[in-house]
Structures are given as C-alpha cells and as structure tokens.
C-alpha cells in the first residue's frame, strides 16, 4: 500500500510530518510519497537522522503551500502547484491509496471535493471521528465540515456513519441516533424534525437501525453507535468533550499530587490513568477521514506531531482497506432524496 502525505501542511511541518511519515512507513509496512518542496523535505529527512531518502519513500515536488489565510473555495484555482493539491490529484489518479494532510481543514475539504471528487450522488462529504464513550466508541458525523445542513445531508450522514461504524467498529447493525435537545419527536429545529421523519422512514424500510433522537449526555454514555448531526453542533460536542477531558485530567492530576500518600495511590492506578489520557489525546487518534469522498482522504490535526502523523498513517491504511467507499457506492440509491 502507498500513502501520500502532505509534507508541508500543519503547524509543525515539514519536520514533524516527515518524522511521523518515516515512523509510519516502518510501523505499518507501507510506501510513502511526500508532497512538497524537495529541498525542505530532504532537510527534514536529514534532521531525522537519515542521510538519504529511505527505500520506499519518494518525494513529489510541489513549489507552493496552502496557507491558513488562503480562501478554501478558490485556493486551488489561484495556486496550481501546492503540496495539498498535488497529493489530492495523485490519490485521485491512483498513484497512492490514501492521502493525509494536516493543513487547513477547509481547504482540504474543498480540494477533496473539487479535485478528488465526492462519491457520485453524495451531496456533502463529512468528517467523522470515532469518539470515546462510556461503553466504547461512537462515530460522530459531522464534526465540522458542514456548518449548515439540509435534511438530505443529515440522512446521507446517517448512512455514511452507519457504514463506517460497520467497518471500523465491527458492528452488524449500528444504532444511529440524531443529536437533539430532547428525545421526543417534536423537539429541536425544523431541520431536526424533518430529518427525524426521513430517518424513521429509512428505519421502517429496514435500511438503517435508527433509534430516534438522542441527547449529548446519553450519546457519550454509549446510547448509540452513530451520532448524526450538523457540523456546527457536532464540532461543539467534540470540542466540549476535549475540554471536559482536559479539565478532568488536570483535576485528577491535582488530587494525586497532594501528598505522599496520594502519590503512592497514583502509582497504583497509573496504567488506568494513562489509558484515560490516551483516549482523549488527539495525537493518539491521528486523524479523521472525510467520508463521502471518492478516495481516502484523511485530515490530521493541525497541531500534529510525529506521533499523530504516524497514527494517521495507520488510520489511512485501515480506511483504505476497509471497503467503505465501495459500500457507499453500492448503496447510493438509498441515500438520494428527490423533491426537496
């Protein structure tokens, strides 16, 4: 398998990206193509302790970089030779099996839509991270790619999330919930009520295991396997979880540092504490796939360090070999809603 990585995207590019790519190559046994400025990439390779480009690693030269200040909608028309744009073209043309970038989320989503293209019939690609819950993990779709949604988008997200949960969580019939401010059918906005009706119809037809509205607190307790929502509220849910996790971590750390006795107690529960921290650590997660794009495109956290990139390579491998894109393509007829 060959993974294409935008060497110039992200807060710590190119050094941390290259470092993570080289580690990912060894760990996951894949070939890597790094897109970006050849001189800069070679300098980073050298800084990683390698005198020459390791076997199985190539560079695809690009002279420009997508900056955070670039307008996502037009950047690929203005800048023709960016490391991100080149990577998207290469994955589209089959020169690699997946593409990873830690660059601008908006630009990557737009580029994936314009260059790599959506799966035919999919109206919007969504970002769907796996979030920790009390009972395991759940797919949160969308977490920020689409701030404003229509019922059709949300219905499609429900299907996309369900296929993703089947493939990544190994569930036969993932329980799909619509994130809302209450469980009763009349709760929420028009968008929520219209979507609820469409999802109930899909459930009655046996296409989805839709369980109805779900509140955020129940969702993170493991009340469903797929949390369907617009990117605006999904992003707030995700960031709130990150914030609460961070506060909880600091509070626990403070409690255990109080005196010798509590420090001894901390040593006893340290493995558990470490796994709790890892559960909330974006660097352990690596990245988030854009579901609905015709080829695997993975968004790594903007602040990705080498560990995050290494993990993103693993995620790219898993996504590319999961068969989810074929699942979506063969079920697209279920997801199209006419006459809106």
């Amino acid at each position, binding site marked *: 398998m060959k993974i294409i990585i935008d060497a110039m995207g992200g807060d710590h590019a190119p050094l941390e990206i290259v470092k993570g790519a080289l580690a990912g190559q060894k760990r996951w046994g894949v070939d890597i193509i790094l897109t970006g400025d050849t001189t800069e990439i070679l300098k980073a390779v050298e800084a990683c302790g390698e005198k020459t480009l390791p076997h199985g690693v190539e560079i695809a030269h690009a002279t420009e970089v997508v900056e955070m200040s670039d307008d*996502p*909608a*037009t950047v690929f*028309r203005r800048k023709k030779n960016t490391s991100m744009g080149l990577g998207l073209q290469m994955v589209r043309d089959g020169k690699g099996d997946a593409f990873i970038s830690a660059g601008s989320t908006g630009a990557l*989503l*737009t580029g994936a*839509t*314009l260059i790599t293209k959506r799966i035919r*019939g999919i*109206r919007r690609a969504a970002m769907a991270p796996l979030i920790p819950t009390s009972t395991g993990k759940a797919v949160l779709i969308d977490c920020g790619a689409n701030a*404003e949604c*229509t019922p*059709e988008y949300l219905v499609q997200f429900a299907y996309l999330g369900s296929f993703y949960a089947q493939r990544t969580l190994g569930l036969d019939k993932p329980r799909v919930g619509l994130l809302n401010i209450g469980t009763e059918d009349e709760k929420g906005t028009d968008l929520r009520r219209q979507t609820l009706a469409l999802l109930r119809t899909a459930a009655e037809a046996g296409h989805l295991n839709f369980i109805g509205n779900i509140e955020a607190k129940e969702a993170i307790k493991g009340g469903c396997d797929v949390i369907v929502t617009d990117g605006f509220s999904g992003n707030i849910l995700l960031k709130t979880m990150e914030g609460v996790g961070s506060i909880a971590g600091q509070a626990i750390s403070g409690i255990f540092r109080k005196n010798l006795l509590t420090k001894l107690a901390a040593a006893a529960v340290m493995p558990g504490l470490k796994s709790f921290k890892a559960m909330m650590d974006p660097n352990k997660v690596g990245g988030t796939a854009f579901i609905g794009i015709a080829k695997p495109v993975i968004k790594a956290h903007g602040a990705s360090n080498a560990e995050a990139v290494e993990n993103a390579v693993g995620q790219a491998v898993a996504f590319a070999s999961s068969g989810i894109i074929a699942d979506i393509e063969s079920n697209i007829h279920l997801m*199209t809603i*006419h006459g809106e």
Partner: protein
Amino acid sequence: MTMEAIFKTMQDLIAEQFALDADEITMESSFADDLGADSVDLVELVMAMEEEFDIGEIDEEELTGLKTVGDCVRFLNSKLN
C-alpha cells in the same frame, strides 16, 4: 452552439451536481436562493462548465456576476459565439 443547447447542457450539469431533476432548473433559478448553493458548489459548477464547454479558465471577476442559471447561459453564449 445555440442558447437553447447551452441551457440544456447546463440543466444536465446542475441536475447532476445538485441531485435535482433537470426540469426543476429554469433560466431564472438562483444558485443561492433556489438551489442552496454555497461557494464550493459554485466553484465545482464552474469547473464542470470549463470542462464541458472547453472554454479555458474563467476569471474570478467574471464569476461574481453569475447569480442565476440564465446568467451562466448568457455568459457561455458570449464565450462560445
């Protein structure tokens, strides 16, 4: 290419991109108000127009005036004929 032929081709392009029936799209259809298009939709459509009609790259300044399907059809007519 006649205006009518350009409109038919545009109807097909837009129907494909926005998952609509072609007969729902008229010359008066507004991209933002009737089709719910955002900036990415418009760039996507413009790229499809450039490819379909083989007219090279459309300048960004020219894009700003294209608010309805009819605007696009007239713009393409001026480019092609």
